[in-house]
């Protein structure tokens, strides 16, 4: 009953899409309006934390190499840590804005983990391409949560932060276990699926 890994990518894409919509809405209406209801204030950090928790079973059941295990474990930890800091800030238990550094750190670690654990080239096949793309997306877009630390009211940072998750969701939806990418597929990748 274990799902194929592409299905796991699509399920996570769904979680990240919802996360992105929440962040986009917060960027549009402003943090004050978004947090007018307590449940909504906790919504996106809680969702991000849940996605971090769900990375643990992925680490456990999809360990086809040590580097995969380390990468999945790193994602689980930084996603949980970054969103736990956001939850702490929302609840008022954490007061310093520097706690927001958890998110840019999470982006950088996640992006690096993507790039390190994907050992094939960009055009090896679809999932290799999406892993490279996700890695660079997260590394480059870590600038947005970083600006969010320094300028919490920045509309540009909030929008960029949200759009980064849109790109992550779309890229995860594009993932396939074995498929062509722009007409390329390595003969070593195996037979492409549908």
């Amino acid at each position, binding site marked *: 009953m274990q*799902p194929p890994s592409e299905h796991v990518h699509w399920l996570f*894409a769904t979680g990240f*899409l919802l996360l992105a*919509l929440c962040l986009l*809405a917060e960027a*549009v209406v402003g943090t004050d*309006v978004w947090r*007018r209801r307590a449940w*909504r204030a906790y919504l996106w950090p809680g969702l991000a934390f849940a996605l971090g928790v769900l990375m643990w079973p992925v680490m456990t059941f999809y360990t086809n190499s040590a580097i995969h295990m380390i990468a999945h474990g790193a994602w689980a930890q930084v996603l949980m840590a970054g969103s736990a800091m956001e939850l702490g800030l929302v609840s008022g238990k954490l007061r310093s804005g520097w706690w927001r550094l958890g998110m840019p750190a999470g982006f950088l670690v996640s992006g690096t983990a993507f790039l390190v654990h994907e050992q094939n080239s960009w055009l090896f096949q679809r999932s290799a391409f999406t892993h490279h793309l996700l890695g660079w997306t997260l590394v480059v877009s870590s600038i947005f949560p970083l600006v969010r630390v320094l300028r919490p009211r920045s509309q540009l940072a909030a929008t960029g932060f949200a759009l980064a998750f849109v790109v992550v969701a779309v890229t995860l939806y594009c993932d396939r276990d074995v498929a062509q990418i722009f007409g390329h597929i390595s003969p070593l990748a195996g037979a492409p699926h549908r």
Partner: protein
Amino acid sequence: MNAELVTELEAPLQRTTTSTRAWIVSALGPTAALGGVIWAIVQPYRVTLLHPLGQGFWWLFVEPPLLAVAVGLFFYFVITPGLLRDLAEEHATAE
């Protein structure tokens, strides 16, 4: 005193900003759902409900275009209404 004139000039601008924000928030969910619908039309083989025979559990349970539609509808019906009410309240308070 021409303070009233200043109020008259600022109020419509604020109303426009609020209505633009409300319009964008209202469009987020439908846009995601529309993306899913377009995807289902472009790649109908991704929607295994259209050809369910011989499909395993995960192929029937995880159908990316339908998941995108579901997220959009969830956001539109569960999160957007309260958010629009709060945006209107904030606007009323500001006035």
